[in-house]
């Protein structure tokens, strides 16, 4: 039956492709039987395959978290290196921040949710927030008090 002109590479490929189709479409219980006939334990295969998939899943999730964290750190570093003309005193910066929240009250939840009380924000937090706001261009749209 086999064509004389076909290479053995093609013939072997056809045998394996038909076996592959059989595996894709065979009823599940027959696949279990095949495994047992080959001396393999389907329960062990189940545990092993799930553990391979779950470990890929976990490492992919961790990779995503690490990348997000690195991105956040890079952003913070960039903002802290950038030059902003903020008030020189902590009190002056606090007044600016207060002005932002009065004129753009919709922003308040973003800061108070994390810190509960506005008064609990440290001078450092205020400075970081102001830099972020400046970076986003928010400060340009706010009437800021003069530094005393």
């Amino acid at each position: 039956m086999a064509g004389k002109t076909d290479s053995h590479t093609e013939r072997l490929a056809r045998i394996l492709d038909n076996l592959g189709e059989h595996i894709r479409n065979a009823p599940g219980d027959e696949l279990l039987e095949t495994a047992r006939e080959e001396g393999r334990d389907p329960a062990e295969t189940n545990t092993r395959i799930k553990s391979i998939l779950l470990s890929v899943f976990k490492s992919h999730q961790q990779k995503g978290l690490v990348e997000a964290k690195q991105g956040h750190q890079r952003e913070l570093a960039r903002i802290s290196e950038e030059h902003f003309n903020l008030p020189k005193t902590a009190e002056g910066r606090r007044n600016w921040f207060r002005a932002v929240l009065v004129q753009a009250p919709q922003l308040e939840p973003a800061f108070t949710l994390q810190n509960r009380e506005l008064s609990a924000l440290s001078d450092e937090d205020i400075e970081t927030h102001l830099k972020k706001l400046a970076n986003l261009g928010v400060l340009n749209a706010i009437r800021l008090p003069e530094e005393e």
Partner: protein
Amino acid sequence: MKVKPTPLPARKSQPATRGEIDEAIKALTQEDTERIEQTAMNRIYRVRRAANGRSHKDLIQEAFTRILDGTRQWYKDRVSFTDFLVGVVYSIASEWAGHRKRNKELPEYALLESALSKTDEDGKTTSPFDEVQEPSPNAEEELIDAEGEAENKALVEKIEAAFEHDEKASILLMGFQDGMDGPAIRAEFGMSEKEYRTTMRRIQRGVRKMMDHGR
């Protein structure tokens, strides 16, 4: 007058979320994992050298990684997770085979010269490359092709010999080599579905033994 109810707009299907993928893995049955395992092994045998040392486990990992990174998106309302993963396994194996076909001359695909060299009774080692004067890439490719063909010829003959006393298996093996598929062979030789599947399982076992032994 009856008012025809306006049909609700069909919801556009969405790719599965991470949570849904996680649930799908945990819900895999033994039948599912056997299908994944046996398919991945079959594809590794199929691509052979193109796998370049990678195992069926690597193939499964690579397929799943592509699902997670969004290169391949699983729509759970269209296909089961197992069937989708099996499809990705097929596509990656084809990709590996295609890469090898385009890059046969790369050292990672070529057989080591030492594996092709022969030592005669006098202890003199000759390499098949000795006869080739400054081989052009085509000549080198031809040599690699010829070597692969010889290896596959030996394998096909080994498989045929293993089933020479099994009439049904021989019919299937010859039919496949001739380009026929299962339904065509069954129709031509009056083989029942059950006979076909039982015979395929015998062939699968035999081929696996030979392929594992030959690696």
